[in-house]
């Protein structure tokens, strides 16, 4: 519990966290507002809220980055020394970071939904574009779970790679570059991290993706693999 409290303090005591949260709100507000306002009614009808979520991949990068910073800040600023001197059971530190990453993901997801649904759905309502409530709940749930998992994925990948720049670049490669490769691989490509996450989040216009549940399970498996790898490597590596 002490380690968890410490990791929460680390998260909220640096400005980067709040800049990422603020940046996400601004970007998401612009996306939802512009899409709901500018697209034609024909484009919006029949797609429920999916069209509002075109900015989700970019927002996912925000939460992934936050998770990556949770792990890699220890090595970038060399605070790992004091962290692991106070808590020599290093796997507990990584576990606490994963949990804090999940909590941060929940907060970011709630903010995201509040902006996206609050702004986008009110504009759609004013334009008399119908939205199916059940579908909207499914999609927003998938987006929220995906954001939480993306943050956890960032924590795990950061614990494995340690270097902050390398981790963020690797994340961008996973979420954007590898998506291109995945498209070339057909069905097998839908099991790639970014593709499975897109399936979970109900990506717009990509019906070939995995279902939300399957996508969530596959991306969740990636998170578990990196989380375990991060804990094992952090426990066995030397801090020098």
């Amino acid at each position, binding site marked *: 519990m002490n380690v968890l409290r410490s990791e929460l303090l680390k998260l909220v005591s640096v400005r980067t966290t709040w800049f990422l949260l603020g940046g996400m709100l601004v970007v998401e507000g612009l996306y939802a507002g512009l899409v709901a306002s500018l697209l034609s009614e024909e484009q919006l009808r029949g797609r429920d809220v999916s069209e509002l979520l075109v900015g989700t991949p970019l927002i996912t990068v925000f939460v992934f980055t936050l998770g990556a910073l949770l792990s890699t800040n220890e090595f970038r600023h060399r605070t790992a020394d004091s962290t692991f001197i*106070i808590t020599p059971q290093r796997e507990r530190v990584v576990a606490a970071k994963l949990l804090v990453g999940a909590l941060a993901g929940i907060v970011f997801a709630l903010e995201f939904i509040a902006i996206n649904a609050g702004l986008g759905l009110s504009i759609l309502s004013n334009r008399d574009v119908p939205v199916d409530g059940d579908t909207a709940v499914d999609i927003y749930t998938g987006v929220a779970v995906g954001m939480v998992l993306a943050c956890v994925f960032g924590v795990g990948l950061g614990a494995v790679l340690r270097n902050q720049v390398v981790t963020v670049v690797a994340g961008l490669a996973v979420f954007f570059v590898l998506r291109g490769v995945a498209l070339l691989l057909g069905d097998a490509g839908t099991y790639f991290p970014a593709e499975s996450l897109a399936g979970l989040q109900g990506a717009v216009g990509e019906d070939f993706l995995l279902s939300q549940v399957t996508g969530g399970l596959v991306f969740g498996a990636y998170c578990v693999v990196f989380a375990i790898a991060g804990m094992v490597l952090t426990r066995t590596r030397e801090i020098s």
Partner: protein
Amino acid sequence: MPEIVIERLTKRYGETLAVDELSFTVDGGHVTGFLGPNGAGKSTTLRAVLGLIRPTSGRALVLDRPFHRLSDPARTVGASLDAADVHPGRSGRGHLRTLAAAAGIPFSRVDEVLAMVELTPARDRRVKGYSMGMRQRLALAGALLGDPRILLLDEPANGLDPQGMRWLRDILGSLAREGRAVLVSSHVLAEVEQTVDEVVVIGDGRLVAQGPLNDIVGGEERPVRVRTPHPDALRAVLEADGAGVATDDRDEVLLVHHCTLERVGTLAAEHGLAIFELTREAQTLEDRFLELTGEGGNVR
């Protein structure tokens, strides 16, 4: 039982032998200087003690057990390995609170240690605005958070001005007088000479010397320096008494071996020979260190 025991500690990085069969102990109630030139293996040894790296062979024990087996490490060992190891975006107080929270230490203690290191006025400023001296104080505050019985400080004098040096000397001395074991590494010997009372000297990863500072510097073996207008007469008297006498560059200065200050003064008085100066020839820790490690700082 010594607070810290290093037994035949060896650490090898590939072809590089950082620490080579190093053995020494650290007791409570002393400030022990852990001295050696850059690259001698001081930081590697401290990291091995703190469980941050694994020895290739040998062991490093704190209170007779490996560091990771301590039941309450933060209240047993306080350590500062590098004053720069702080997130620059946090305040000094915020940084210490993250450490206190991890150790289950109440936040009121954070304000106490900030006051101890005289950082209270700057506690809410972000660390990126701290001077090196302030960062050293913050690092020491972090080490003191758990009120530990053992302190390990790696180069704590780096970046301190003369006032800061005096402050560090005073606070380390008072901590040792409370019975704590304080191990201070440094490669700047003049900075620690007035701070430490025990010394461990290493070079190229090997133990060169360990013992009380006075023994290492060789206080009683140093010659007595006498300045007199009657050097020939005094020399004769001293040599007749069994002392060995050499002359300094200046004719009126004698360097007297195998004789106490008191005996030289008594003999001079008995023979009516005036003395203008009578003192034990000083040898600095730096002089002795260079003797032990060679001019280049290497033992091999």
